[in-house]
């Protein structure tokens, strides 16, 4: 499945840009594909065991993946995966 991963500006510099094309059958596979291509970005997306962090939320289209199986959530062609890390500035 072809999926586009969207990064916030702060992480985009660790990849080629804000929108990265990736493939996989699940959210976890899509993220692993991106992590393998961008080693500096990898630790910002998931932990050493490949699991999601509690402070980085992934939205598959507009839904939080935590409520749909997390990294096991299946993806479809053309889906958009958006990375939303916690920020605290005020």
């Amino acid at each position, binding site marked *: 499945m072809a999926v586009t991963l969207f990064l916030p500006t702060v992480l985009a510099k660790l990849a080629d840009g804000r929108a990265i094309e990736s493939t996989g059958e699940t959210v976890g596979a899509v993220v692993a594909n991106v992590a393998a291509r961008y080693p500096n970005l990898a630790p910002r997306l998931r932990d050493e065991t490949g699991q999601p*962090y*509690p402070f980085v*939320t992934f939205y598959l289209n507009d839904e*939080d993946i935590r409520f749909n199986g997390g990294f096991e959530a299946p993806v479809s062609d053309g889906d958009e995966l958006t990375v*939303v890390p916690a920020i605290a500035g*005020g």
Partner: protein
Amino acid sequence: MATATAPLATQLEELSSDEILRYSRHLILPEVALEGQQRLKASRVLLIGAGGLGSPLALYLTAAGVGTIGLVDFDVVDVTNLQRQIVHGSKDVGRPKLESARDRLKDMNPHVHVEGYETRLTSENALEIIRDYDIVIDGTDNFATRYLTNDACVILGKPNVYGSIYRFEGQSSVFATEDGPCYRCLYPEPPPPGLVPSCAEGGVLGVLPGLVGTIQATEGIKLLLGIGEPLIGRLLLIDALSMQFRTMRLRKNPNCPACGTHEIRELIDYDQFCGIGGDPLQDPHGIPEITPAELAAKQQRRDDFDLIDVREPHEWAIAKIPGARLVPLGTFTESLATFDSARDIVVTCKMGGRSAKAVRQLQAAGFKKVWNLAGGILRWSDDVDPSVPKY
């Protein structure tokens, strides 16, 4: 999308003829009208933080006629705040933010009562302070206070209008309503200290807190009046660079220890929860340090050592310490091979945080003679060479 809830401001307070004239553009809006304005006058809103977000929040809520505005802040106005903290002025530099904000707000609208709490919000005082308010607006600048604010609001059943910003991006939502999600449903745990730089380290577009703070102020007024569709169960993502606003669905987590299972019945130690001071590896005090005065003496003696600056090139262009070599932290790992472990190495950055990380990396790679410059280039400017600009 959540529909309008009952107005949170349940009382009505009479308006004087001066106030009726002042608020005329509200009074002719059917959604606000006389009754809504009377609700606003009777309402009490607590702002956590009188900084970037707190400035537009306080200004607009005061102008709108919210009867009582509580401000929690213990900071002093610094000249670097003025690029975005528009409630303060140049004449206020050095004054407590509470005093400065109070003067500005009183000038803007003498009918509004401003209550100040010149303290850090803590587990000891949060419930006591928040209890007397109808809603809380979170405009703080750190994770520990955000989790504290969230948990206190859930425990007390007070809606928490959330906003946070970093560089060009912002987030906003409404947490801790009766059936809605809370901050812990969005982020169950904070990132480890140091992973997410603060605005002081990473920068922030000055207008951004204006964008996000006015969204929070709008949500606050809607909740008080019970109008429109509040941002309950929705996370608004704001990207100023692409000027895109996206709304993500936010669900209440049934296992959330705060709003789901209600395991959190009392406030905890939020510094510990956020890993501050708990992990010796994260503790800057465990790292060998050198003061700017000692570094200057070392330079004068012409000691043989390397001074490595781990800031970004755009920061290097603003100010640098003579004799330093630029190796940005992002490329530090790849550059380790270029360092000579036989020589003394002093590492610096803007304030000493990033350089402490670099020192840890060097130590982990087997370097023994490494020191962190305490306070970074800012303290170098204070203690040694004021001609080096601070930023």
